[in-house]
């Protein structure tokens, strides 16, 4: 289930707006605080939860992930270089705290440069992993949908 913002903790800094990969964290026009504009499209990546400097964002649990009565919260502290999770189980007894370094590689090195990676070769496209793409993504014939192929242009700014 999607993220939601505790309005008493949010101060409208915009870090979650900046980091959301689905571009669904935005600023409420009435209170100028952050909120999730499209909960259906949230895939609970926890980017906004980790980015919020005030820990004002939480994720609603669903099914076997954080069922009713339990809680999953995270604090990503970049200055310390650690990520800490606290998972409270709904039986009220198990309360796990997990602490780990954010990265085990040396800091400042080994950033992946995805732009310089080559596109999949024909052999890879014929492999079982990729043979049904992009046809099965777009459900008809043709290449991958892009903005250009659909005659669209990206407009600067946020419209919602």
């Amino acid at each position, binding site marked *: 289930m999607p993220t939601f913002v505790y309005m008493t903790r949010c101060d409208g800094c915009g870090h979650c707006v900046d980091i959301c990969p689905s571009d669904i964290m935005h600023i409420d026009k009435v209170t100028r605080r952050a909120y999730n504009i499209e909960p259906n499209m949230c895939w609970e990546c926890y980017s906004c939860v980790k980015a919020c400097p005030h820990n004002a964002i939480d994720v609603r649990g669903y099914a076997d992930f954080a069922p009713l009565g339990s809680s999953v919260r995270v604090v990503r502290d970049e200055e310390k270089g650690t990520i800490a999770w606290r998972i409270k189980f709904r039986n009220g007894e198990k309360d796990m705290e997990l*602490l780990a370094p954010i990265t085990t590689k040396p800091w400042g090195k080994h950033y992946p440069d995805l732009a310089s990676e080559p596109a999949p070769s024909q052999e890879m496209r014929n492999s079982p992993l990729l043979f049904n793409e992009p046809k099965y993504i777009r459900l008809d014939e043709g290449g991958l949908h892009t903005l250009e192929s659909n005659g669209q242009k990206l407009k600067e700014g946020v419209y919602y």
Partner: protein
Amino acid sequence: MFTTNPFAELSATISPEIMQAYVILMVLFVIGGTILDTLHKKSAKYFFENAEKAAKNATRELSGAEKKSLMAKTLTNEVLTSSEFSNQKRRMSHLMTMYGFIVFVATTAIMIFAYPEAKTETPAILPILWHLGALSLAVGGYWFWFFIRVDVLAEAKKWYQLARADLFIVSLLAMSTFALLWSLTSGHGLFLVLFILASTVLFTTVLWSKFAHMFFKPAAAYQKRVTKADGSRENLPADFDLTDPEVQRKFPDIPEYMGTNPPNMGLGIKREEPRHY
């Protein structure tokens, strides 16, 4: 000009009683608006429910003295120095706006109630503070309006695109700008009318604007401190000391990959402003 009481000069056309009645009326509007806001949004009800729910997860009981100490810390940190803002530009702008507003409103009230007539000598400090308050409010407010507002900073909105959330800041800026213009033009009628209009909008729209945050935020800040002190921490993990051997024993990845005295890693995503739109 900066040392003359503009309301004393105004008393020739508008009687002091009317000015004083207006101030009292605006105070009543603020009180009424805040109460209505609380009732309508049920914010007080949810706030106390949330506080009770958090208290159930508390690991220790807070004594009265501890609570008083937390209240004092909230007052000195979050209220007086706006320490809740981690972004220093926002903090600076908020401090200028907040203290400008307080000084401006306080000196207005003092001048209207204690020195309303031209024949009583107004201490020069009051008009000076009045002008400084309005100036601080204007500078901090315009800085916020053009550069710091999150819709402008993080969402590529143009500064002239208004939303309901802008009601408070726009009326504040209008009030301070027209007050300064009224004084600088030695009492020009147009700026007086606009000044009164802006102040009236500011104080009567408390139900729909962000005005009441000044009452709610200290309560939220105090409650946040309580959750940290009583161990409930809003279900967040504890603030671990990475050099503590007990922590290193419990989480062996830390000493294995970061050493026994992990360095400060520096800012990550926070080193840049959130404006990658």
